[in-house]
């Protein structure tokens, strides 16, 4: 199954906490790009991860050539054309930066957006950054609208402080661009509140088509009402996956397992074997990225992308 995201990386502060160094990554078959990345370091405000750290908000970089992107030659060889960096903060302090890299593909329909309430009233969200590939009309519509709290996918996530997933966006009343999304071939969307910085809130939305989903499966985990266990609020994939559902019926204890570690440390994690793909026709899930959603130093949710 082709997924929209080709490369996923986690960058973490080094011992002095002045630079970002490579923590882990999923590169599929992009071995040379992986080798070019593993040795890389980024200072504050340097490269895509360093820039996201400095600006305190998610960034979308649509053109690598003549930009602040540091691995342009390697990315070009690997066919990667777009980068998204999502900083994970606890208060003022950076815990990690998650980077997604995508490839231009005429067969894909998808968009990645950064919404923020940067208007004077701070009461509505607008797209401040986005990658739409060839969906030019949908981009125009999206950049023109603003949404209030509780309105649209981004507004819902902003209001709830939680990730919101809509599996059939063209039919969702909550999604105000439903008609345009359908025209653009977009079927599914997830919105994730990512950071508050300098009195502005930021929400990421990932919109994708059935043929090129974001990931093979996406899960949203939240602490239970007692705050003692994580429970799976939602699991979504293009095709039903009973095995994944079995694991989603379990609860997660703080500190135990990959998701438990994300809860304990607030750090995103990548797990699994990037090289193993022994049964792709079964959509076997062999790698996972789990990103924490942190609000005022507390874990609100974990979004896991399974590839």
């Amino acid at each position, binding site marked *: 199954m082709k997924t929209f995201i080709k490369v996923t990386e986690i960058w973490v502060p080094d011992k002095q906490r002045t630079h970002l160094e490579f923590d882990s990554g999923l590169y599929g078959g992009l071995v040379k790009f992986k080798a070019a990345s593993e040795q890389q370091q980024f200072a504050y405000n340097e490269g895509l991860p360093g820039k996201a750290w400095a600006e305190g908000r998610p960034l979308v970089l649509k053109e690598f050539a003549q930009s602040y992107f540091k691995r342009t030659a390697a990315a070009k060889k690997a066919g990667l054309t777009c980068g998204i960096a999502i900083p994970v903060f606890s208060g003022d302090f950076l815990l990690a930066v998650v980077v997604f890299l995508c490839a231009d593909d005429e067969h894909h329909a998808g968009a990645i957006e950064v919404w923020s309430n940067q208007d004077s009233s701070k009461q509505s969200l607008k797209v401040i950054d986005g990658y739409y590939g060839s969906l030019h009309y949908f981009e125009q519509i999206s950049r023109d609208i603003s949404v209030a709290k509780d309105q649209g996918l981004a507004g819902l996530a902003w209001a709830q402080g939680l990730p919101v997933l809509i599996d059939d966006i063209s039919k969702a009343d909550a999604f105000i661009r439903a008609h345009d999304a359908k025209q653009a071939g977009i079927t599914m969307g997830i919105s994730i509140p990512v950071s508050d910085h300098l009195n502005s809130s930021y929400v990421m939305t990932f919109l994708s088509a059935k043929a090129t989903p974001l990931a093979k499966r996406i899960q949203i985990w939240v602490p239970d009402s007692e705050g003692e266990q994580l429970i799976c609020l939602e699991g979504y994939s293009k095709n039903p996956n*009973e*095995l*994944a559902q*079995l*694991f989603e*019926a*379990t609860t*997660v204890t703080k500190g135990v*397992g*990959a*998701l438990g570690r994300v809860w304990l440390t607030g750090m995103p994690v990548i*797990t*699994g*074997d990037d090289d*193993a793909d*022994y*049964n792709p026709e*079964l959509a*076997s*899930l*062999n*790698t*996972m990225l789990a990103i924490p959603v942190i609000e005022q130093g507390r874990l609100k949710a974990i979004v896991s992308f*399974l590839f």
Partner: protein
Amino acid sequence: MNRLNVLLIESDSTCSALESALNEAGYLCLKSHYDPDFLKLIKQITPDMLMFNLQSPSKKLLADLQAQQLLSAMPIIMFATDDNSDSIHQVIKAEVCTYIVNGLDVKRLNSIVSVAMARFKHNQALKQALEEACAKLEDRKLIDRAKAILIKTQNFTEDEAYHTLRKLAMDRHISLGEMAKNVLAMSELFK
């Protein structure tokens, strides 16, 4: 009439008794000597059987034979004069079917070839059975590990874990072992 394609390797290129006997017995015989291109020659002519007539097999030859048997097994008969027990041990490791010391008697050639062929087939059947048993054992281990994970994470009984695993495998039209691999991979993600 035998039409087995035999590659004959002799250290004494002037000796022709064995080659003649093979031809007379109806085998298709190609005679050569051992050299560094030995494996390439086998690949090129794809013989049904290898036959050697030499004093003692060198380490290099035995290593080549081991490599060949891994790649594509074939019956091997070796006539030699070396009766050293270490040499015999190495020859057996190289999967030589018949090793005859100081016993080249062309009158017995047909029976020697027949015994070698029969032993080769028998050994191949044993090897295949062993491989299947190892694979089943490996599957059994995977299934037990997957069951243990389902028991631990889902609070299943052993029976429930087994039946869940079997249902998942049946739904996907795959073996229990293959399904167990999927469960283990999924569990690795959450480790």
